[in-house]
């Protein structure tokens, strides 16, 4: 399952970041590396992008980018 499949409030652990483009690199630099715990906070009013909590701060990313983050629900 991916980050994009989670609902607001759900917690998960990052398993992998798919893809090898700049967007994937940036996701990892922002702290979404293997084993990182994350939590979905909410979705924007129009349903996209989404807000997540990671490493003690809040990050927003589009569902399309979130679909490249493989996760395991906690």
């Amino acid at each position: 399952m991916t980050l994009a499949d989670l609902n607001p409030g759900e917690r998960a652990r990052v398993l992998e970041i798919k893809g090898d483009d700049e967007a994937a690199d940036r996701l990892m630099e922002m702290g979404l590396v293997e084993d990182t715990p994350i939590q979905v906070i909410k979705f924007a009013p129009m349903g996209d992008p989404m807000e997540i909590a990671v490493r003690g701060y809040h990050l927003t990313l589009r569902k399309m980018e979130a679909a490249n983050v493989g996760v395991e629900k906690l």
Partner: protein
Amino acid sequence: MPTEVIAPPKLRRIALAGNPNAGKTTLFNALTGMRQKVGNYPGVTVEKKEGQARLIDGAQATILDLPGTYSLTPKSPDEEVARDILLGLRADTPAPDAVLIVVDASNLERNLYLATQILELGLPSVIALNMVDVATAAGKTVDAGQLAHDLGCPVFPIIAVRGEGLDALRAELAGDLPIPNPPALDLPPALESARTQLARAIETDSDNAADVAVTSGPRGIALRLLCGNASAATVARVYGENVGRVLDEVRAQNKVRPAQESGPRYKMLGAVVTNALEQSGRELSQDFTDRADAILTHRVWGIVAFAAIVLLVFQSIYTFANLPMAWIEALQTHSQTFLSAHLPDGPLRDLLVDGVVAGVGAVLVFLPQILILFFFIGILEDSGYMARAAFIMDKTMGRVGLHGRSFIPLLSSFACAIPGVMATRTISSRRDRMTTILIAPLMSCSARLPVYTLMIGAFIPERYLFGFLSQRATVMFSMYVLGVVVAMAAAYVFKKTIFKGPPPALLLELPPYKVPAPRNVIVTMWERGSQFLIRAGTTIFALSVILWFALNYPKPSPSQLAAQPDDNARVALIARNSAAGTVGRFIEPTIAPLGYNWKIGVGLIGAMAAREVFVSTMGTVYSVGANTDEESKPLRQKLGEDHWPDGRPVWTTATAISILVYFVIAMQCVSTLAVVKRETNSWKWPIFMQVYMTGLAWIAAFIAFHGAKMFGL
């Protein structure tokens, strides 16, 4: 006796680095006050900010504010500049003598990602642990001593916004800073062997043996060169031929991915943070942010609040600016009266009064709106709301292929496209930034307002639709909507054609809300205001003078002038005979299909300098004196009396609508073109902009004119 000349000691240059939102700007402003210099890095469109900081005992230093970045693996021109300066790769900016790294104490782990990358470069460094109050409120206690021990670098807790802890930091910066000794970073085997190989080349290459950074941080420098796109040629120039060659070799052998560094670095940081950070259960600030966001990014209320904020900004630009704009106009009129009264009659007086003062006034009058706009932008940015605006708008902007970040530059463009174009610097993707720049001038800027007011006031009768909706207000509003619709359509087309590509990642931090620092807001207003005056002022000023000559010379012969019945007729004859009048008559065939005669053509030429010049140029051409403003009755009457040679009136409602539509879409602003040239470093884009906008404007005005005529207008 020989005199000893003591050269003044060269000021130490300290680079200020840190994540966006870490309070870098606040610290920069606090250390340097207003002693700042803003410019551009040559060759790129990245802002260069430098300032003089007074340290202790008269010691001073030059602080170089690097662009905010999350890592030293650059993904945008700003980030590239930050990396290049720290590595000494920029020919125009030598590597700094020391680095001041700002770290947000409330967001320690991610901030240390960049901080440790910098420490590994081996430059003398000091860490300013900022926002310790925010961290405390979030239930986070950072042990600065432990952190300094683990990172091998002095750490100073500060609260930049309140100036707390800055004296200790200043004292430290005045002394000799130590070379950091950061914890070792264990990399995967392939990357590790590449780093070792390149580091050895850097160390042994004789060119740089004396360089402090090279002797203390070759492994850090090697890693940055491996995980980045710096050209091997530049590297060879700075670090020696051999290093460039090894870099090429290593790059060819194994495909190094920057991401291979991320996992190990966060693992290393995990240990550092566990040691230095104590997290209690209480989270006050996140609590406040969560409660604020429960409304501000709520499904329904979030949009309502957003609309209300945009409306407030927009309304303020127009209403609060009215009074200062009236003062500036009054000042202009007084100066003109004063000059007219005290200078002898002649061309010099006319040039000063109608060319110089009128031209400078035309620029100055927009300053209040620019200042008000940047007052709000400063507050929205500093409080943390701007990221929420992007969060809310991203989906909508995404429909035409734009980034949520494009929203603010476009909003700014309603005041003036110049700050709007300058505000696109926050957009990291070049394709998105270019698209935003290309559509920004389609937003109805305040310079169009005088033209709208004149046309609507003269030709749209005041009636109330459905009993309450003002017809004039509706037409005015429609012009704004038309601009937005055309802009969105153009963006859609650009993103499908010339700037085709995958949509860029959003990935924005949503920082906790905070009270904006007044100093930051004032500095923002000051910077943007002075940039506007210098950039736009010089162009408009020069053009006003040129235009004045074009509208007044060559003069008709004295006998022709003497033959005219009155002064008004003489002014009209001068306009007709002038260079601009000649061009106006020359272009008449191309604008006649839109319902315009040569006089309107002269107005359009005048509007090239700035759109509002159309109004005063029409005044000159229709000879009611140059000090025409849109409310003047005589100009409206004169317009109605103008006829084509065959007796049809030139000015009908259809003509007015055609002009309105033309002004919404056409590119008629030399200052904007000049700024676009600066921002894109090429004449290609301003020329493209001029052609596509004016072409579209012609087509739309043609349709509007003939459509309106079919409705009998």
